[in-house]
């Protein structure tokens, strides 16, 4: 658990780097990532800018605490290395070499994480999708955004464009109605999502029906996740609420960009947790929920069960839709199994093209009240989607 927390704090810090003021430039070399003050654990990406002097740069070496961890021969000078899990101070040194020897270097020191301090962190992160017509608007800058929290303008402290690592739960309805071609489609779609994940992204696969059929831990290892997908068979009824609640709980201790991708061809029938509680859970967290609704059509069909009458089931459905939209995610209705894969790809693409904005709310009271969040973009003809707000909890 501690390891997870530390990794996520590292992710959060990585998100902050994108707006961080440029570090003091060492002669010929500038470390862009990790930023000053970040916490370095686990897989870490080093990015450096090298400004050539009189002679061309032949290679760049990266050292951590004096130990060579990798060499890059040509631009971009980006290196992924395993920093380990020890909560210790790390000195990162990037050395550029020319034909005649050392051309320049830069050093940055990363202190160990103070866990008690970071638990009080109340940074609100918004993941914002901006469209201009049918296209994504990718040319916006920090200055284009205005954030209002309960009507009060907020100061943006972090700003980034989509490359923040993500932690996803692929929540896949594997009930009996998903047998055969549909399950194959789900496997293909989820695999496409996993294949599109980048280093530092993590995912867990949850396959459910009226019971839990498969649950993997969060992992970057695509083969582990793919194995889970391949070996689970469809059976049973549908309990969306229970396992959506579970997914949100699993994401709760993680920081950074968190997302649940729910794929289902039906409504909840068998859950014990009402959707109103899932909505509350979603409001207290920061995870986005995407709902791929297989063969959902335009209209929800009412039904009654021994658990709820048709009216109450309709309410559950509406509340789920509300939770999805409030979270800043969206509902994608698809009519054919063949569209599942592109739906997953589309969601991953959307996540990559989001703006990531962080701010410290000026009026935090921990009173359980709803905070309305409004994001305005100072450009003509754009549509903005992000979470509607959060519960101050």
């Amino acid at each position, binding site marked *: *658990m501690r390891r997870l927390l530390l990794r996520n704090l590292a992710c959060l810090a990585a998100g902050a780097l994108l707006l961080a003021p440029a570090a003091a430039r060492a002669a010929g070399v500038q470390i862009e990532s990790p930023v000053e003050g970040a916490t370095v654990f686990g897989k870490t990406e080093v990015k450096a800018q090298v400004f050539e002097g009189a002679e061309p740069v032949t290679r760049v070496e990266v050292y951590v605490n004096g130990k060579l961890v990798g060499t890059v021969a040509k631009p971009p000078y980006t290196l992924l290395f395993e920093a380990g899990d020890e909560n210790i101070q790390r000195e990162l040194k990037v050395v550029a070499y020319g034909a005649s020897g050392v051309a320049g270097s830069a050093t940055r020191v990363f202190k160990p994480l103070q866990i008690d301090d970071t638990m009080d962190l109340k940074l609100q992160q918004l993941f914002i999708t901006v469209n201009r017509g049918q296209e994504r608007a990718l040319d916006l800058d920090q200055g284009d955004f205005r954030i209002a929290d309960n009507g009060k303008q907020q100061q943006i402290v972090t700003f980034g464009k989509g490359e923040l690592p993500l932690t996803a739960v692929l929540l896949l309805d594997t009930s009996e109605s998903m047998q055969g071609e549909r399950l194959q489609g789900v496997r293909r779609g989820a695999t496409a999502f996993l294949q599109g994940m980048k280093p530092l992204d993590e995912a867990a696969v949850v396959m459910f029906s*009226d*019971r*839990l*059929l*498969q*649950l993997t*831990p969060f992992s970057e290892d695509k083969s582990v996740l793919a194995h889970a997908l391949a070996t*689970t068979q469809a059976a*049973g*009824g549908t*309990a969306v609420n*229970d*396992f959506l*609640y*579970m997914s949100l*709980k*699993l994401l*709760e*201790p993680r920081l950074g960009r968190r997302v649940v991708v729910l794929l289902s061809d039906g409504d909840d*029938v*068998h*859950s*014990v*947790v009402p959707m109103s*509680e899932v909505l509350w*859970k979603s409001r*207290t967290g920061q995870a986005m929920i995407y709902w791929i609704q297989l063969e959902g059509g335009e209209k929800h069909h009412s039904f*009654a*069960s*021994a*658990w709820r*009458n048709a009216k109450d089931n309709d309410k559950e459905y509406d509340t789920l839709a509300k939770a999805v939209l409030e979270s800043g995610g969206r509902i994608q209705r698809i009519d054919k199994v063949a569209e599942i894969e592109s739906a997953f790809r589309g969601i991953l693409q959307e996540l990559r093209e989001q703006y990531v904005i962080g701010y410290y709310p000026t009026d935090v009271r921990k009173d359980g009240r709803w905070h309305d969040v409004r994001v305005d973009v100072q450009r003509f003809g754009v549509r903005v989607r992000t979470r509607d707000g959060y519960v101050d909890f």
Partner: protein
Amino acid sequence: MIPHRFLVPHPRLPARVAASAVLALVCAAGAVRAQEPVDPFANPGAVTATPGQSGHGSRRDTSDAIQNRYRQILAAWAAGQTEKAAIDLMALESSVVRDDDSGSRKRILKAEEAVIHEIGAANLETLVPVAMLHHDVYRRYLQHGTKGHALLLIHARGMARDLAILYKEQSGSEGAALVSSRILTSLGGMLQQYAQQLPAAEMFYQAVTLDPRNTAAMMSLCIIYEKNSQYETAVEMLHKILALDPGYSEAQLRLALNQKRLGRTDEARKGLEQLAAAKEATWVTSLAAQELARLLSEKGSLAGAQKVLEAAIQRFPDEARLYVELAAVLDRKGEMRGAQAVMAKVLTLKPSTQDSSRLLYNTTRQETFAEARRFLDENARSRLSLLAEALSVPNHATIAADKVGS
């Protein structure tokens, strides 16, 4: 004597109404499509009947041929050739009955009716194995799928049901009521398996009318009442079931949950507490704990809900849902770290291979009808010799056919 009203719609359940209701359901589901002229069930042994065939003589010949074939099939059934008899009857019926010819069912009905009239007159008890043959054929039609066979399904089910009712009405004995009630229960079970709630409810209702001690039909009816939000009626039925079988734990659970829905939370809580504390760890026990925790949670007793769920997890350590519910309760209490610790345990669980208690509650399980079907099999088997005997008497159709042949 077989009355003239044989196979006339029953006053409580008009056959045509039930048939049209089923047909409407099938049509609504888009199951009925334009039919190809080739019948998928046809085989060389079938009797060919062309829709709209004209001429009094040819109709008579066809009817006689159907009757003869039907007699042969019944003889095979009586001889214990159950597989052959059922397949042959399907072939015969499907060679005559077509969904695009609404009059086609009448032809097979009249021919079969004529044979049954004769053997029933010889011995009323023969109606039981004949009903069971049609019951078996109905099951097989369902397994084949309803597409293109709506009238066949209606016919097979109608035959089994009407024979059951006729047998009871003509016999008047308590034993006949038991047999008839179980035939209807089994038919209702098959209908429910294929999600046809209304016709299933009618079957169960009649089954309970014939035998007010038929708890399988009563419980099945009760589940339909629940699904239709008729909680008060369900409670009444459940009290009757528990009066007959006080130890029926599923009935106790349903009673408690329906009481809860009606706002009688004190009664519901008492019932759920007893079930959750039961010695035997069954799906009913687990579900009682889940619902008791839910009730307590809704009443604001989060500590009580927590206690119930923690105890349930001790008994059902592999049930992920109990952990999720407990995490939700702890979240509500503001114990986020405790909730996280609970969720961490979920990650260690093995995938579940059994239907959840909540699914079982929402389903009429076919095991419910196992006893009824066993009872029917025994009763039908014991009467096969009577059927063989009744069939050995020369009949009008055979004599007529012989005359034509000579």
